[in-house]
């Protein structure tokens, strides 16, 4: 084991019982054995001292609050979607809301509303002319998620452009006085003294190489820190 990183990884895998298939436990020298024991001791200590489960305070109240929030959100969404029925929706979500446990009358018609909504969405997409990316031979989007609740993610495959498109609707615009600039970078794997590295080459407007920095794979080099700052 000449590469110290590989040796370290092996010790952690041994300690965690996660040796790769086909790899047998090697004989370790004293130093490695001591390191392995140290890793195992830390791991055991964490497992023993830090409980996996921590019940929230007032657990029944915790649950009822979640249910109530869901009911309120559902009622609000329905109210926004169909103003004409706002009266009945509001009644269902007010003080007459069903008890936390058990199915409530308010949700008996929810599956039907969901089905109707799904049909409407499908019809809308069909009218857009965007095919399903999964069937068109283009890029497939298994999932797309925007952390900000105000941002809507729209995905479609453009047959004309032969490209998959994701559009983030509702993103806050960059201020006009902000200077958005780009850079021309090319990164290549290289073999260095410590194993694989990445060489990042920054080019100028005339194609000249301004700077090359080398970093470990998976790490952005200080180079980017200098650029972002």
């Amino acid at each position, binding site marked *: 084991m000449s590469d110290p990183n590989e040796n370290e990884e092996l010790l952690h895998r041994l300690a965690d019982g996660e040796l790769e298939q086909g790899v047998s436990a090697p004989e370790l020298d004293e130093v490695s054995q001591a390191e392995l024991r140290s890793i195992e001791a830390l791991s055991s200590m964490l497992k023993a*001292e830090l409980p996996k489960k*921590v019940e*929230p305070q007032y*657990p029944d109240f915790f649950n009822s609050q979640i*249910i109530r929030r869901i009911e309120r959100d559902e009622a609000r969404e329905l109210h926004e979607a169909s103003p004409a029925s706002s009266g009945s929706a509001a009644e269902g979500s007010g003080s007459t809301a069903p008890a936390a446990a058990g199915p409530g009358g308010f949700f008996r018609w929810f599956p039907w509303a969901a089905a109707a909504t799904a049909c409407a969405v499908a019809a809308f997409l069909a009218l857009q002319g965007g095919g399903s990316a999964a069937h068109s031979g283009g890029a497939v989007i298994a999932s797309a998620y925007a952390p900000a609740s105000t941002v809507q993610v729209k995905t479609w495959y453009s047959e004309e452009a032969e490209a998959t498109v994701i559009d983030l609707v509702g993103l806050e615009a960059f201020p006009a006085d902000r200077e958005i600039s780009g850079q021309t970078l090319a990164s290549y794997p290289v073999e260095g003294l410590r194993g694989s590295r990445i060489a990042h080459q920054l080019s100028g407007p005339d194609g000249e190489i301004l700077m090359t920095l080398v970093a470990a794979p998976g790490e952005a080099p200080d180079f980017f820190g200098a650029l972002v700052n």
Partner: protein
Amino acid sequence: MSEPHENTDSTEDAELVTRCQGGDLGAYDELVIRYRSRIHGMILRMVRNDADAWDLSQDAFVKAWKALPKYEGRSSFYTWLYRIAHNVTYDWLRKRKIEGSVEFDETFERTSIDPDSKTSPRKAEQPDEGMERSELRDRLETAIGKLSPDHRAVVLMKDVEGMRYQEIADTLECSLGTVMSRLHYARKKLQADLQNLDRTL
């Protein structure tokens, strides 16, 4: 997607999930009871503050309910739920830029912040759950609190939750190499911090 390490009555979960997808809030209430202590425990370890852990746990469960129509059963319900809770927590931490972390992200380093800053949770705020808090646990939690969220998440998932490397990678949506790299770093840092504490005590 790898299966979870723990058998959590997946058949019962599947039945409850099917009912939830049909709009049965009572079934969801059951699932919340089943998993709230684990989700809350994970979030509490990450944010180290009771009030925030409470709020974020609720956010996670509400978000999971809304995402249930998209759940296809490719992973266990708990793994899927855990990922949602982790994302909710991580997004919150990123926005909060919790003080007390030496660096928020291993790639984009932030200015070092005093790890003894006052925003660390006070012991008086910990819930009175009848658990005896050992001195060792306090030391461990202090040391874990000094890790960045990236490193903290990985070491807690491995050593407290007992997740396998691939499960962690799937949950964090990163590569196995990244998981290994963060785990090594986190364990090294914890060892060093605990040794320093031993010397000063």
